[in-house]
């Protein structure tokens, strides 16, 4: 049976540089410890390879006659490593155009390719092989670190097409090395550099585009589409390949997974190294991960003025990131490691050793470089373990792979030997007595066997010396004791069968030739002890605890709903009861359970609120905090995108808003286009995950926008329709007509292409989704109401609505609400007639009126903004407070849950130190569903603990710097503060 492996494919490539020879001999490795998989080893095992593959592995296996036998006594054999995520041999294309916002940039609103999908950033048809050029220099770098196979791809675009799997076989032919030309399909959220097509400009746009493309791919085969679409055809071809998604961060991994789940695709996620901070959610993806090891360098905090800029979150990440692999493993998450993001391949070992120091099991480390990447690529039969039929890709090592002093001797790839460190080199390390010309020197040799270092002493005097050890020959040059002279003694010898005793030729400083001897001294026992000591005492690195979110002011424990009795407060009910003095509010199970005098409850946390005020939590109808994207500006309609996709639960502005008494917000899409994206309505449960911030059974909203922004009056582009208010109207009519037709087709039962954008617009027509429309001047406000009336629906909210006072009567008649700024104006031409009396006039005309922020700062003082309506127009205090509580709740269709203090509603409450409309009031406690998310007292304590933790981390960083580790200059990572008009880019 054994010889059956002899059958190989017939060679057919012409040969013009000699006679055709075939090597049919076997290579046998004997007496090694063979680690066939991370979990199994064969002691004194034998490995037989033939024509690039393993034919036998075991304790006693038959050895064919025509074998070259290599004795590996005391050495180890491991499978070579696999990196499933590289762009080895493939250059990332350079970006062509500028951004949409740089003046004069070349912008394409349409795709530029023929026969492919309508978006240039979707490129499943890309075959990385087309751009692949085997890079033997880079290959050698990988081989030295132990890699045998790399998976590589074109790192460009949202769908990036197929990658290839290549063996690092510098000597093999191109065809031999290429293990698969369609190894996996690659994806990301980043646009292609090959195109200037504007869409998508945002992360959520990229997500929507992916979804739409999947829908289109499902529809295309059965459709009678007139369009030839090679991209869709390619995607459908690539469906059964492994799908590798470069997410680049924990949260983007969740986002990718969410898209995948919708289409029953389980991506393998290339993570960000920050998975550890929310490991439960990472586990919940059920995805396999590919994890980079780019642990951050310590910040150089030696200049305290500069160090100040580094946030606690970034400092913690430095401290905690090395635990990432261990934490993934302890939570049963299957992951491969990758060199992706490492500055050089050679950094791999130190990073893995660091991960091991931080608790990563060595077997898991090995699996993450061998068996797991093989599984990810569906190649377990051929790669990642040492078994019959697998490629002869293996390492010969001195010791166990991840022991400190281990050396990789050889890395065999497809049966070709690569010497990393010569294993035939005789180890000459040790102490010798060197005798030359009657003098006796102390010689000590240490370091890498193939590249030793020497130290020579005559008595107590250390001499300058240099040793060279190559091809078994030692040459040693050293100086005289008299340092004023530059004269040298040279000795040279071959290391023969008696490595403990050398004799050879010496050239003395005067040029005369003589002989020398060197005799090895017995190992000094005390030296060994000394060597061992530090490793015994090796301290476990100190890792600081996580917080939720893992930045300053994060909670060490997530706040829990409590039974709370607020005693003796002035209670602003927002109900017919009005403002009640000396009243108690009882909170139970997250709800308001009772409001009245002299309440009592068992086990309640009693808070004395004497002299203080209690209101419903503040609700901001128009916010842009807690989001990683705001504007999808690539199309004039982006109804397909949703802010829910990009909620960012670790935005410090959530905490700051809580400190201003805000409990609920609507995160709106920006105003870059007439039809914007869908909203996320959130409760500011600081520390919870993105999905837990989003309202359960959330009412559906979408942002529309009018005026200067959608006309793009104040930024670069003049090429996107519409450029006038006239065009805006026609755009709406057109889209709603199309939506009607779409719905007709859908209802007809005929096959139809699912269109996310149209689905959203249909919801609007059917009153299932509500519009919050950014608006300023009366003409356009009037226009949108007329368009809506034409299509038989009602605009829900005009937001900003600075000229609402001019058409308040029409608004009341239409039944639309107004959510406005208290006193912003003068920043654009269209706000020239904005007046601070706007809220009052709208309210007096019967329009449900709210005051919003559109600003991370103002939102934390919305109670004060509401109070301005007392000054401007003399609104009653009770009504003023409703502008930022009950009325926005009504506008958001959540007034059945929040917005007033009524038994049965959510216990979203604020305890104020003073009259809540006064500038002097501070939020003392902010409660959401019975859990205290902000507490002045706790805040004070956190300030202290932040300072002391930063100090501790600074000390650790200084220590790292003093130990010679690399550092990086202090940096402050910046999140954009979003307003309506903020445009962000994705690359």
């Amino acid at each position, binding site marked *: 049976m054994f010889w059956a492996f002899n059958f190989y494919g017939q060679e057919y490539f012409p040969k013009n540089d000699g006679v055709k020879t075939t090597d049919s001999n076997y290579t046998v490795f004997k007496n090694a410890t063979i680690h066939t998989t991370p979990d199994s080893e064969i002691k004194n095992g034998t490995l037989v390879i033939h024509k690039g593959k393993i034919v036998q592995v075991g304790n006693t296996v038959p050895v064919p006659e025509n074998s070259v036998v290599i004795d590996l006594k005391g050495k180890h054999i491991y499978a070579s490593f696999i990196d499933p995520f590289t762009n080895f041999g493939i250059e990332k294309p350079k970006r062509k155009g500028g951004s949409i916002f740089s003046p004069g940039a070349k912008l394409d609103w349409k795709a530029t390719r023929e026969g492919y999908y309508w978006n240039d950033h979707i490129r499943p048809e890309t075959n990385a092989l087309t751009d692949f050029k085997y890079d033997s220099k880079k290959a050698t770098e990988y081989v030295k670190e132990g890699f045998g196979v790399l998976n590589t791809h074109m790192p460009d675009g949202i769908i990036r097409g197929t990658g290839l799997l290549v063996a690092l076989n510098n000597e093999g032919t191109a065809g031999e090395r290429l293990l698969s030309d369609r190894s996996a399909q690659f994806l990301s959220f980043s646009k292609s550099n090959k195109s200037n097509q504007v869409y998508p400009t945002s992360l959520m746009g990229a997500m929507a585009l992916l979804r739409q493309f999947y829908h289109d791919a499902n529809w295309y085969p059965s459709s009678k589409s007139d369009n030839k679409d090679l991209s869709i055809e390619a995607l459908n071809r690539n469906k059964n390949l492994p799908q590798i998604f470069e997410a680049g961060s924990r949260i983007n991994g969740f986002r990718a997974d969410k898209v995948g789940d919708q289409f029953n695709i389980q991506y393998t996620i290339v993570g960000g190294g920050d998975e550890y901070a929310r490991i439960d959610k990472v586990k919940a993806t059920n995805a396999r991960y590919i994890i980079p090891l780019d642990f951050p360098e310590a910040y150089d905090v030696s200049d305290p*003025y500069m160090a100040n800029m580094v946030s606690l979150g970034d400092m913690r990440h430095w401290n905690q990131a090395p635990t990432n692999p261990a934490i993934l493993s302890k939570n049963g998450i299957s992951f491969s490691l990758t060199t992706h993001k490492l500055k050089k391949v050679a950094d791999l070992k130190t990073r893995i050793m660091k991960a091991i120091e931080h608790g990563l099991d060595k077997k898991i480390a090995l699996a993450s470089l061998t068996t797991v990447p093989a599984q990810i690529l569906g190649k377990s039969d051929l790669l990642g373990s040492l078994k019959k039929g697998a490629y002869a890709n293996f390492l010969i090592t001195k010791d166990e792979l991840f022991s400190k002093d281990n050396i990789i001797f050889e890395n065999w790839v497809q049966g070709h030997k690569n010497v990393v460190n010569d294993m035939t080199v005789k180890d000459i390390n040790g102490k010798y007595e060197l005798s030359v010309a009657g003098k006796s020197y102390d010689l000590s040799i240490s370091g890498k066997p193939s590249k030793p270092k020497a130290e020579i002493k005559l008595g107590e005097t250390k001499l300058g010396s240099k040793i060279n050890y190559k091809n078994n020959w030692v040459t040693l040059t050293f100086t005289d004791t008299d340092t004023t002279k530059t004269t040298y003694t040279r000795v040279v010898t071959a290391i023969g069968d008696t490595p403990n005793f050398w004799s050879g030729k010496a050239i003395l400083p005067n040029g005369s030739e003589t002989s020398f001897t060197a005799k090895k001294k017995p190992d000094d026992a005390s030296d060994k002890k000394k060597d061992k000591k530090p490793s015994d005492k090796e301290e476990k690195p100190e890792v600081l605890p996580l917080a939720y979110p893992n930045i300053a002011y994060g909670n060490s424990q997530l706040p829990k709903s409590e039974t709370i009795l607020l005693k003796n407060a002035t209670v602003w009910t927002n109900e017919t009861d009005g403002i009640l003095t000396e009243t108690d509010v009882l909170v139970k199970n997250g709800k308001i359970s009772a409001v009245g005098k002299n309440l009592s409850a068992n086990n309640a946390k009693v808070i004395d609120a004497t002299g203080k005020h209690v209101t419903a939590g503040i609700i901001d109808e128009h916010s842009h905090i807690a989001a990683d994207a705001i504007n999808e500006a690539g199309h004039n309609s982006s109804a397909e995108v949703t802010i829910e996709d990009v909620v960012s639960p670790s935005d410090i502005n959530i*905490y*700051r808003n809580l400190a201003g008494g805000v409990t609920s917000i609507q995160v709106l899409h920006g105003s870059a286009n007439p039809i914007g994206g869908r909203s996320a309505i959130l409760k500011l449960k600081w520390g919870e995950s993105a999905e837990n911030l989003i309202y359960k059974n959330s009412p559906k909203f979408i942002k529309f926008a009018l005026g200067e922004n959608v006309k793009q009056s104040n930024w670069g582009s003049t090429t996107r329709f519409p450029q006038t208010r006239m065009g805006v109207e026609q755009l709406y009519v057109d889209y709603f007509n199309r939506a009607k037709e779409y719905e007709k087709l859908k209802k007809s039962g005929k096959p139809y292409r699912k269109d996310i954008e149209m689905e959203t617009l249909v919801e609007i027509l059917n009153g299932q989704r509500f519009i919050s429309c950014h608006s300023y001047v009366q003409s356009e406000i009037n226009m949108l109401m007329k368009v809506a009336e034409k299509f038989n629906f009602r605009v829900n909210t005009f937001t900003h609505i600075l000229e609402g006072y001019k058409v308040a*009567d029409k608004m009341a008649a239409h039944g639309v609400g107004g959510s406005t700024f208290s006193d912003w104006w003068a920043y654009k031409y269209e706000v020239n007639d904005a007046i601070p*009396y706007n809220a009052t006039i709208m309210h007096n005309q019967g329009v449900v009126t709210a005051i919003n922020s559109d600003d991370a700062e103002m939102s934390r003082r919305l109670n004060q903004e509401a109070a301005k309506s007392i000054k401007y127009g003399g609104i009653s205090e009770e009504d003023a407070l409703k502008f930022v509580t009950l009325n926005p709740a009504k506008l958001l269709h959540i007034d059945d849950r929040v917005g007033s203090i009524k038994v049965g509603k959510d216990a979203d409450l604020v305890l104020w130190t003073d009259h809540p409309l006064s500038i002097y009031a501070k939020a003392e406690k902010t409660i959401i569903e019975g859990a205290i998310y902000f507490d002045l007292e706790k805040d004070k304590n956190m300030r202290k603990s932040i300072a002391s933790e930063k100090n501790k981390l600074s000390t650790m960083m200084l220590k790292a710097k003093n130990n010679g580790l690399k550092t990086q200059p202090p940096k402050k990572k910046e999140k954009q503060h979003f307003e309506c008009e903020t445009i962000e880019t994705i690359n």
Partner: protein
Amino acid sequence: MKKIIFIITLLIVFSGKVNAQQTPVKAQSETISITGATAHIGNGEIIENSIIIFENGKITAIGTSGSATPKGKVIDASGKHVYPGFIAPNSTLGLVEISAVRATDDDSELGSYNPHIRSIIAYNAESKIVESMRPNGVLTAQITPRGGVFSGTSSIVQLDAWNWEDATIKADDGVHMNWPNIFTRGRWWMGEDPGFKPNKEYSKQVSQLESFINQAKASLKSASTDNLPHLAMKGIFDGTKTLFVHVNAEKAILDVISFAKKHNVKKLVLVDAYEAYKVANQLKQNDIAVLSGRTHKTPNLEDEDYDLPYKNAKLLMDAGVLVALQNSGGMERANARNLPFQAGTVAAHGLNKEKALQLITGNSAKILGIDDFTGTLEVGKDATLFISIGDALDMRTNQLEKAFIQGRDISLESHQTKLWQRYSGKHSK
């Protein structure tokens, strides 16, 4: 009570004044006495049940009721409050009307070394934004150019005037300089990380600035120099002009202090100075005043106290530094009318209310060098003051009944109140 406020507000707007919008008032001819009000002096003191008399634009008497005999026109302000007009330093009021409309923007000249550029020339006394200051009590402003290393020379105006000449109460009071940043922001539109990183050019930029100063000093030694930027620096060295240095980082502030010493700058004021509280002792020792940044902003850094901008001025004041508030930043012109509430915010976060008032009155005048004639309710000073029904630092009670600039009973109307009237009328039909 709420109803009463509403009616009073209506009265002010509908029946109060017959003055046409924006029409500046003639010089005070009739003596005015305000009686019974709580007088907030602007120097930390307060006089309950006061009498204030002003004639020919100047305060001639102030004290507790009975300390002087009312004369001229007597306004009974019992239960109400009188404040000195609020002062908005480092402002671009009247330089820009609509930020997004380039044709209306006159705040920033081309070039980096522009000390000779004079803001007062472009000041639009008839700006719709300027008139919207007055109903909130902001009656004086320092008009300051922006941009460059040396932005230019500011002047101080009162906010009821026909033209810039009439408006000026102190011409060319100071030169404004933007100190180089210790940190620079990555240019995200060029694919850089958008965060902040150390500015590698910092020392170079500081030395360029120094060489400009040295050149200016050299030019000034010659009587015949006609170098405009250098001539504009003269007042900095002879003490007739204040050097306003716009700077934020702690380390940069320390550099500014030594820079000023080295070049013998007579009057130095730091503007914005976000981290000044960290070096408050040095500022006090060197007698350097601060025009602290707007309180209504988010902290610069994630780790900072959420209320750091709220209490920043308090920290300086507690340390004995002379400090006032300014409001530069996004939408600074429209927001300048909220200056009283910015001061109120500091009071909410621990500062005594009368001290908070100093941040926008007495202290501002001292820092701008106009305290000899305005900024507080004291005999001999301009009668630039107003009557509010309640606490003017709180938006809930800031209700102006009357305001006077140099004794002139000014209009509290504006483009905005006019639109209010117009559309209230439309809807009441």
